[in-house]
């Protein structure tokens, strides 16, 4: 076994909440649904939970095996490895996308003069050293960071209550149904179904039978936080909410308590740093562990830094500018992610069921 650490289902839930909040804490999903974003998030949560049901069922069926080992068992060595490499590409690419979200946000809002490469390398070094310490350390970090982040979100929401104008949410269901469904699907693909990377982590649960509930609990909690944030942003910013790239960041700027506590949006930025750190670490961990398993390595630790650098290079080259990044995430990504999030896990699950895998040792057919 490449990973000796084990995590509890509670730790898994918290880590998953952190992962889902990841970059969606700053890029509130469902933005193109305008003031109906919260409905899109609720629908997306449902779709995302269904998707999560597929891959958790698949992984928990094989108990302590990651998706790489499962692919080998279900499809055989050759095709299994090919499918595993597809997954690895997705994790790597997703990691690069999150890195891009990170850097573009900071370059736009806080550090216009800091070079992209420097920022990416710094983040990657911290994530790599965390991954190097194993899944246990990562899960324990999340146990401190996620509660802190959620309390900060609630705190700033409290501060914003005086600025709420609930009329901004009216009329409910203003959108044509097709647009709403598209928006809901894009919410499902980012961030909820991205949790498909946990096919690498579910294997390390100390009680695998609790995995399904842990995943669904985490998705619901993260979904509720996102819905609250979305309602808050619409209520505060009104029709302008769809125009902003980072609505949470804009909304929190409104806070002004007697001229003393102003410009608290730095709190949102800090939340984004910590949650993004969790998300990138999880993705890096998934990529590195998967690659080590595909290549039959003794340890995944030596390839952490090379893969991390690869992720940085991919992040530097795959989009030219912020506009392109948003264009990709809004228009292409919801379709691009479907095979990785739904189709491949579903096919694997069906074949595993048909072949009655995993075979138990006791001579069962």
């Amino acid at each position, binding site marked *: 076994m490449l990973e000796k650490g084990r995590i509890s289902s509670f730790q898994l839930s918290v880590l998953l909440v952190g992962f889902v909040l990841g970059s969606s804490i700053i890029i509130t999903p469902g933005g193109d649904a305008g003031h109906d974003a919260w409905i899109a998030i609720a629908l997306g949560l449902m779709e995302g939970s269904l998707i999560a049901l597929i891959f958790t069922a698949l992984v928990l069926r094989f108990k302590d095996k990651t998706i790489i080992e499962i692919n080998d068992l279900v499809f055989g060595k050759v095709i299994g490895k090919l499918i595993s490499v597809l997954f690895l590409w997705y994790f790597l690419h997703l990691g690069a996308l999150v890195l891009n979200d990170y850097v573009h946000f900071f370059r736009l809002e*806080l*550090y216009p003069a800091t070079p992209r490469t420097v920022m990416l390398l710094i983040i990657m070094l911290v994530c790599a050293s965390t991954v190097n310490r194993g899944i*246990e*350390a*990562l899960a*324990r970090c999340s146990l401190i960071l996620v509660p802190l982040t959620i309390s900060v979100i609630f705190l700033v929401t409290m501060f914003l209550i005086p600025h709420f104008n609930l009329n901004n949410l009216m009329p409910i269901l203003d959108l044509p149904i097709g647009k709403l469904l598209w928006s809901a699907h894009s919410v499902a693909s980012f961030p909820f179904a991205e949790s498909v990377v946990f096919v690498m982590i579910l294997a390390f649960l100390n009680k695998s039978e609790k995995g399904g509930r842990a995943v669904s609990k985490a998705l619901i909690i993260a979904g509720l936080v996102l819905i609250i944030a979305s309602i808050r942003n619409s209520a505060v910013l009104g029709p302008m909410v769809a125009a902003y790239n980072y609505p949470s960041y804009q909304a929190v700027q409104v806070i002004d308590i007697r001229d003393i506590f102003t410009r608290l949006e*730095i709190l949102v*930025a800090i939340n984004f740093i*910590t949650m993004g750190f969790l998300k990138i670490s999880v993705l890096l961990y998934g990529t590195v562990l998967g690659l080590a398993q595909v290549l039959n390595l003794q340890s995944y630790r030596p390839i952490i830094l090379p893969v991390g650098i690869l992720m940085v290079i991919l992040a530097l080259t795959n989009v030219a500018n912020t506009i392109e990044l948003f264009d990709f995430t809004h228009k292409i990504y919801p379709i691009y992610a479907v095979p990785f999030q739904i189709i491949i896990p579903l096919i694997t699950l069906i074949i595993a069921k048909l072949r009655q895998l995993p075979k138990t040792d006791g001579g069962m057919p």
Partner: protein
Amino acid sequence: MKATKKVSPVNLSRKLEDNLKNIKDSLGESSDIIIREMKISSNANVDAAVIYIDGLVDRDLVSRDILQPLMFNLQFIKDKVGQKNSSLLGCIKSSVLTVGQVETTENIDSIISSVMTGQTAMLAEGSIQALVIDTKGWEKRAIESPENEISIRGPKDSFTETLRINTALLRRKIRDPNLSLVSMQIGQRSKTDVVIAYIKGITPDNLIEEIKQRLKRIDTDAILDIGYIEQYIEENPLSLVPTVGTSERPDVVTARMLEGRAAILVDGSPMALTVPFLFVEGFQNPDDYYARPFFASFVRIIRLLGFLLSIYLPGIYVALKSFHPELFPTPLLITVAAAREGHPFPVVLEALLMLILFEILREAGLRLPRSLGQAVSIVGALVIGQAAVSAGLVGAPMVIVVAATAIASFMVVPFADTGALFRLIMTIVAGFLGLFGMIIISLEVLSHLAALRSLGVPYLSPVTPLNTSDLIKDTWLRAPLWALGSRPAFLDPLDKKRQSPDQKPHPPQNNPNERKS
């Protein structure tokens, strides 16, 4: 260092002269080694010798209870020498010497090592045995009140340099016979006595085994202080934070042992180590438990706040000033900008200058002879405060920031030195990357701490991995004593229950004095 050179084990011969020559050869020419030869029989044909090291033994004890009886019982000894079936030394041991602990040995090496620890050896002509008499009694410091860990309501005794006194202090607090004191010697040359103290039935056995393993591994020339042991047994010696706790207070050590930890005591060190040591322990103080719970909880939270301030405050000031000035409330921003008017250095340089200056003052104040300390503090206050500002070196707000940081840094003593390093790192990073850099470094530290273990126990327990009951009852808050029913679960104690349930005091049910209305 001839005295401790290894010699192959030599047994005593019947000739006293040979034995003494052997011993003299091994002990060398040191002036503090006393070899007192005498005749102990009235017909003056039995020679004997007593060997001890002056300064390590209790002189009164040696002359009153060893020399005097030996020389005044000439007739008795003469009678015994005549009898065939009784050995001379056996008789002396049973009937002459009036000292508590006497043992026999046949080996010159063991004689020498016991003499080195302050025991007295007695040899006699014609005997292949020797008596080793416990006469340890060197000058020692009395038990004084603790100097570094001050408590308001707690006991006022502290450990001293003598191991026996320290173990006695523990025994006096816990009369349970299960209090075990396992001793061993470490150090090729110093041969220092080390004691592992724990309570059988509470401390898990594998913890004791692990400690023994780690102590046995130590193979160095000398253990001069408990700090040596600390550095040899730490799990992650390259970490910036300590993973081994120290205390000079018997009550603290006892309390930790009662929770399921083990203590290590070293002869010659007025401190005890306790393992495992966790992050939250740094914020706990004996007074928390002696005072009522509300204020204790409040003070703990203040300590956490002070600790965070002492690490982050200069960094935050630098970051806000150089990267995020919009975060200052506008009136304050104007004042701060005005105060920095005409100052040549960037704010990060100012901060580093003041922090380094503060560390210099602190170290100088610590090392200087006491009589000079006053002068340093006056000069320091002038330099750091008034002069630096009026000379235009630093802005006035920076002085406030550094002063507040300095005070806060002394609140959490176990992490005071760690905090100083983190503070410098944070300030430098804040100068380069602002709040973003500070958060990134904090994340790195957090993940390091999350992976760290002290003797197998995760360093950040019970916060992460989470143990809700311990987290609520005795981490940042301190529940009333009657509610602390079980020992901390993360230490995995053998006996989980600390007290019987329903210890909450309540008014008497049938109070005879109650007025009937």
